[in-house]
């Protein structure tokens, strides 16, 4: 039962641990992940990963991946520069959110530096990943770079699912992105009351007058050039068209997601990162003009999807853990999680027994309290009868 991991009181999906068996394990020869031949064509493989052999899955690493253990090529520290968060999201900017989500899914240790209103660091073309002397700038390229560094969230996918991922990402960029851009940057009410003040507050003074305007113009440009062809000469007609497309796209995504937890089974992949990155800002940020948000709220499985990812993967970063000090914390955390898991299993059994035979509780409870006292789990609440 060692694969369950309980982090900060929130249960992770079962395969959470499997994903992070990674580099730096001296037993596996210099940090290289042993590859199994799969039916993935060799050319597609670098993009969508490979299957890990069974032995590695059972290895049981830590949640955060092993760092500095034994030999093996250790990644240079990866630093991501992106826009900050608000309204419960780690980042309000879609592309930054995609990269953050992917990093969490694949276990990549990213040091996130949020853009604030000091003059440090670059501001254009965000999100930017720097590692040693590589600077990578767009989300697709950043994800490729992370995959090459063996932080791969897609290794469980078959080749066909990998192809589906590409197709759905194209659909998102073509149909949903214009509407997201429009909601944030072009719709006047939204832009002047929410977007511009938020971004301006994070940019130092003289630039804060210029940069939001520039971003808005770039968004408008993109929409008009890709969607605003004749006979849609007027922005209003383009708007109607792009919102229609976006609603259709959201419906398609909702149909595809159905009732499963993530798009391809129980582990999140690149597609989940992209969908989360585009849909979550629409869902969470409070806008005055909310037609697309209303539509998203009607699709309850998409809302559930976003909420799940937020609660499972982003609670820690909001609590302020830095990736650097995680090693000792991880060890304790793992012990804690195992204990708490044992407790919760006991609880479930108790629960079942309770329901079946009501006269049992008085005898069972003292045993329960005893085991609780023995262990160190202080985050655990005893079950009240």
């Amino acid at each position: 039962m060692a694969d369950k991991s309980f982090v900060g009181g929130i249960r992770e999906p079962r395969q959470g641990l499997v994903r992070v068996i990674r580099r730096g394990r001296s037993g596996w020869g210099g940090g290289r992940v042993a590859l199994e031949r799969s039916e993935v064509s060799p050319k597609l493989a670098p993009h969508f990963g490979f299957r890990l052999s069974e032995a590695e899955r059972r290895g049981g690493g830590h949640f955060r991946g092993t760092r500095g253990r034994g030999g093996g090529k250790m990644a240079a520290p990866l630093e991501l520069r992106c826009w900050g968060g608000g309204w419960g999201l780690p980042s309000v900017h879609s592309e930054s959110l995609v990269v953050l989500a992917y990093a969490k899914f694949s276990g990549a240790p990213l040091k996130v530096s949020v853009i604030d209103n000091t003059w440090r660091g670059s501001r254009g073309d965000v999100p930017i990943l720097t590692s040693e002397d590589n600077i990578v700038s767009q989300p697709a390229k950043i994800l490729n770079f992370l995959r090459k560094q063996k932080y791969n969230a897609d290794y469980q996918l078959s080749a066909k699912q990998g192809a589906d991922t590409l197709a759905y990402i194209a659909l998102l960029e073509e149909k949903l992105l214009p509407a997201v851009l429009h909601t944030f940057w072009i719709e006047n009410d939204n832009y002047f009351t929410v977007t511009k003040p938020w971004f301006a507050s994070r940019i130092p003074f003289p630039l804060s007058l210029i940069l939001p305007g520039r971003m808005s113009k770039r968004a408008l440009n993109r929409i008009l050039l890709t969607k605003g062809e004749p006979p849609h000469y007027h922005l209003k007609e383009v708007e109607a068209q792009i919102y229609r497309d976006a609603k259709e796209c959201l419906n398609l995504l909702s149909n595809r997601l159905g009732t499963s937890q993530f798009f391809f089974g129980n582990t999140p992949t690149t597609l989940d990162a992209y969908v989360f990155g585009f849909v979550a800002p629409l869902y969470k940020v409070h806008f005055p003009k909310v037609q697309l948000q209303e539509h998203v709220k009607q699709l309850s499985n998409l809302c559930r999807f976003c909420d799940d990812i937020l609660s499972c993967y982003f609670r820690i970063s909001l609590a302020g853990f830095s990736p650097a000090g995680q090693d000792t914390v991880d060890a304790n955390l793992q012990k804690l999680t195992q204990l708490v898991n044992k407790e919760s299993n006991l609880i479930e059994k108790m629960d079942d027994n309770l329901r079946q035979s009501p006269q049992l509780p008085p005898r069972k409870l003292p045993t329960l309290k005893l085991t609780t006292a023995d262990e160190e789990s202080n985050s655990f609440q005893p079950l009240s009868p």
Partner: protein
Amino acid sequence: MDPGRVSHPMSSPSPCSKAETDEEIAFRRATEPWPEDATLYQQLKGEQILLSDNASSLAVQAFLQMCELPIKVVCRANAEYMSPSGKVPFIHVGNQVVSELGPIVQFVKAKGHSLSDGLDEVQKAEMKAYMELVNNMLLTAELYLQWCDEATVGEITHSRYGFPYPWPLNHILAYQKQWEVKRKMKAIGWGNKTLDQVLEDVDQCCQALSQRLGTQPYFFNKQPTELDALVFGHLFTILTTQLTSDELSDKEPGEKRKTTYFVLGSEWLHL
């Protein structure tokens, strides 16, 4: 759903694709039959048409053939300007003019012919996603290759694009179009891509399509759909067009499945 960039004489609400009964389809076919003199307009085949336009035109022709609707292809030098949306190809049916594959598919559906009725919702979503993938990657790569790659532009594109016009109009129009395309590339983030990166993207796209196709004859079930028409149009054009660099067509072969698919597709057009 967008009823196509055209004004319908009968402004019917967008057809719901779910519960189309046979009687309804038969009714639609009876009231708005496909005329015998439907024509498809594109640019001059031998001297003027460019890679991307040729691909789109072939895709539409293949689609109409698959629906068994007769269409006549007419080549006009100013087809691009005749089109209601500025893109070729466009079809002229009865008293309506519809351009581009997407609206044409919807228009044909409104007339009661459809290739994708047999698909369920998830498959339809997949089909739409793959069509977007082809448009996003293959079409954009073709545009990039013919307008942003200096070698191709100088040798082929400029002379072909400006073919029907006298000097200096041919140069001016060609430069104007090039500037427009470059602007669009920059807006969607392709402005900084090198040729190698573009070819890598094409490769990835073809791999994805190849994986999806597997060993089946068509992408969905045993019947061709509009996705098959679209992919066929692009593949055929890429494989049979001579460019200065053969890199684009080099990416395609070696995929046995796609070659058989492509052979099947050419049967449709009796090429």
